[in-house]
């Protein structure tokens, strides 16, 4: 019985295919990347969220103009709940742009309004290096010629105006939005600028969004090794950085769900090899540094850095491990962190008892299953009722997920960490690992858990 049906799913038996209890003897993966069961209280978002919210939003020096009714722009303003920081806070995440489509615009079309909006936004913020235009649901239906308008506006204002056809109803989750963002940025931006100079040690970091400053911890490790980070995709990125990404010698891919597309395209067109990495926890970070060093022939330097960094954090991590030993965690993330973090938790003495993703594909589940023990519940696109059942029935000591699930966990008295936008991060690489462990300690041992009372039944 590898596939199983949770109690809360009795009346929606199609959920059984998404619910797998891992057994080593089998070669089974939960069904993934398909349409959500309608009305099942999914935690998924839309294609616009994947494109604008996740991949493009972190780009710090373009006007992100949302073409549609007002809500879609409002939700992603300032990154929404995402903490994709940049060093341009006077502009990036501070301003929110929308065409604010009204009923008449829906009836008669919004092309004029969009054209004027692009020109006006550019006039107010002439220092912005481009305008990215995002189509939302209604736009796809009324058939505005986004590409045509953007082309006209680009000719008029003389900076790049890039349309993203990322209507929310496309696809089955945020995932298609990542793909659309990758394809569009590759077609319209990558390769449009040449770097001032090249070195033999130019590398791109692809698929890191600088959540609470992750990249500001990641980048220096490679720079100390002698590597130049030519471009980051897209945390703290200037659109010009992405434009020159095609000249790198290597693409280091961190988020392997939202960016494999652009890595593949760059490999095909520019011959840039891809190295996949996990930059969470001591072992995985050290492995990433060694892999990159081996590619560039910088092994000695890497070993020096690893030794220095590990010696700084290892004793403290060991202390934490002794405190956490035997605890059990339920990991529910967008996709890759569900498997990135299995090993990181293991370094802290915490075993994963259930792992789920919102928009994972088969390869994400394969990676989860490679890493977790037999008997672990592996779940695709869980809904709110399933999450509640798992938290009650499997009684994890810790739940790591996103904001929407945070208060479910709290209301059930289960310690929780926000793995999407972090609590007190950054969580990446060595120093971030200490933040992560410290936050786990707070979550597990805060005295308030002991004060909760039960109703007499």
């Amino acid at each position, binding site marked *: 019985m590898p596939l199983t049906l949770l109690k809360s799913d009795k009346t929606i038996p199609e959920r059984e295919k998404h619910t797998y209890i891992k057994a080593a003897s089998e070669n089974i993966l939960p069904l993934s990347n398909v349409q959500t069961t309608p009305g099942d209280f999914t935690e998924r*978002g839309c294609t616009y969220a994947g494109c604008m919210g996740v991949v493009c939003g972190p780009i710090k020096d373009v006007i992100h103009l949302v073409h549609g009714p*007002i*809500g879609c722009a409002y939700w992603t303003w300032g990154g929404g*709940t995402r903490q994709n920081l940049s060093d341009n806070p006077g502009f990036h995440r501070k301003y929110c742009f929308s*065409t604010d489509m009204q*009923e008449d615009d829906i009836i008669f079309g919004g092309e004029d309004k969009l054209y004027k909006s692009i020109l006006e936004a550019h006039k107010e913020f002439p220092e912005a290096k481009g305008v990215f235009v995002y189509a939302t649901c209604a736009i796809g239906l009324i058939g505005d010629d986004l590409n045509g308008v953007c082309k006209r506006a680009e000719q008029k204002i003389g900076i790049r105006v890039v349309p993203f056809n990322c209507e929310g*109803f496309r696809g089955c989750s945020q995932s298609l939005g990542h793909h659309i963002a990758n394809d569009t940025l590759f077609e319209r931006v990558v390769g449009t600028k040449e770097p001032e100079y090249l070195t033999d040690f130019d590398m791109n970091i692809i698929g890191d969004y600088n959540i609470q400053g992750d990249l500001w911890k990641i980048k220096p490790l490679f720079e100390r090794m002698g590597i130049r980070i030519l471009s980051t995709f897209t945390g703290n990125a200037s659109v010009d950085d992405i434009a020159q990404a095609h000249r790198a010698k290597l693409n280091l891919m961190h988020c392997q769900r939202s960016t494999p597309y652009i890595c593949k395209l760059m490999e095909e067109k520019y011959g840039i090899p891809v190295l996949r990495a996990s930059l969470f926890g001591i072992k995985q970070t050290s492995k990433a540094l060694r892999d990159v060093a081996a590619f560039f022939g910088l092994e000695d330097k890497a070993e020096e850095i690893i030794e220095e960094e590990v010696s700084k954090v290892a004793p403290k991590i060991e202390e934490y491990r002794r405190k956490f030993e035997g605890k059990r965690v339920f990991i529910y993330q967008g996709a890759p962190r569900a498997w990135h973090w299995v090993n990181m938790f293991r370094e802290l003495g915490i075993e994963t008892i259930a792992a789920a993703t919102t928009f994972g594909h088969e390869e994400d589940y394969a990676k989860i299953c490679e890493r977790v023990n037999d008997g672990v519940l592996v779940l695709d696109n869980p809904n709110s009722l399933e999450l509640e059942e798992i938290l009650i029935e499997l009684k994890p000591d810790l739940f790591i997920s996103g904001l*929407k699930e945070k208060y479910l966990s709290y209301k059930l008295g289960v310690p929780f960490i926000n793995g999407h936008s972090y609590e007190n991060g950054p969580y990446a690489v060595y120093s971030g690992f200490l933040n992560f462990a410290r936050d786990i300690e707070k979550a597990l041992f805060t005295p308030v858990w002991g004060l909760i009372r039960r109703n007499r*039944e």
Partner: protein
Amino acid sequence: MRNRSVTINPARMCQPIGAMYALFGVHAAVPLVHGSQGCAAYPMRMFNRHFGELVQVAVSSLGEDASVFGGKKNLIASIDNIIARRHPELIGVITTCLSETIGDDIDGIIREGNFKDSKVVPIHTPSYVGSHVTGYDNALKALVTNLSEESDSDNANDRLNIIPGMVNPGDVLEIKQMLDSMSIAYTILSDISETLNAPLILPKPPFPSGGTSVSEIEDCANACGVISLCEHAGGSAAAFLKREYGMASDTICPIGVSNTDRFLDSVCNMTGAEIPYSLEQERGRLIDAMVDVHMKTCGKRAAIFADPDIALALAEFVIELGIEPVIVSSSTASRKFLQKAKSVTDCCEILNGRDLYELQRAVKSNEVDILFGNTKCTPIAKDEDVAFVRCGFPVYDRVGYHRYGIMGYHGGVYLTDMITNAILEWEER
């Protein structure tokens, strides 16, 4: 640029989130968004951030197929699944720009579906019309229109209907406490005071306790009167109740001394109750608090941004504190707001549904001392170096604002202190 096409830093959200707000105040109700998944996921996070509470919203997950062939199949499956798995008392079907543009006949689908066990109410909230305020108004109107039932006996009961609008649980509590002290029976349409400020006691109930029950909404037809606290968010439901059942109707946003006086007068007129001494004392405490701080408040110049009714009531209250409202800005454009704003004060700049980029321009050019607004106004307060009072929805860069009310005399004390402390902190900066 006064007549921009582009909106920069929007002042408002779209209709569906307002409808969710209203449904969260109904006991064991499920909001079902008929649209894309983002239209449920994004607003949920806004509630999480403001209230620090679990909210559960279902979505019909319309995809490309549905956008071509219509969303009927998804809608019916959604309702069936929700009833089977959660047995709610009520499902509110909330439309979006997607389902409205496709043209799904949700009223027909719901009627034909003939769903048993749960009431299913269609709520039309196209995102390209109005704002979150309109969405709340439409949801309340849909609930009342679809559910209210006159009882057979022709004598009205002596209950009073209160439609709070998009206010905080703390505000609803203030209203309830005033009515309780007058021994008045009432129905709050709808009551978020417990559902969005829920206790942590195990085991977690399937739905939060509290909220207005479906039977209470049905019975609202038999009340002696209705008062909407925010005319733009609940006024349509009040107008329906007045028209359909002939009950007395009034609209007053009880922020500040005079507004609360008027609210209580109206309550007394409708119910025949009298104002108890305990409320006179509360009023006295508010006056006392205002006297204590008038040397700090008098002469200050305020910019007020909020939903229309709250912005107007706040303007009236700051005038009582000797503060001059130099900018009154409504999240949502409305002719009524414009007229009323002109009658509240004749020398201020009125922004009627303009974006916050425009608000910032106005703050820059009006020598403002103190700004009232939600979290989206925080950068304006910092950039322009003015005192800042957080109010409205959403407030998520500080905690706890949902817990405390600014309505009524007691809420007025809290607001007075907040205003004064904001001024003191600003002066000490």
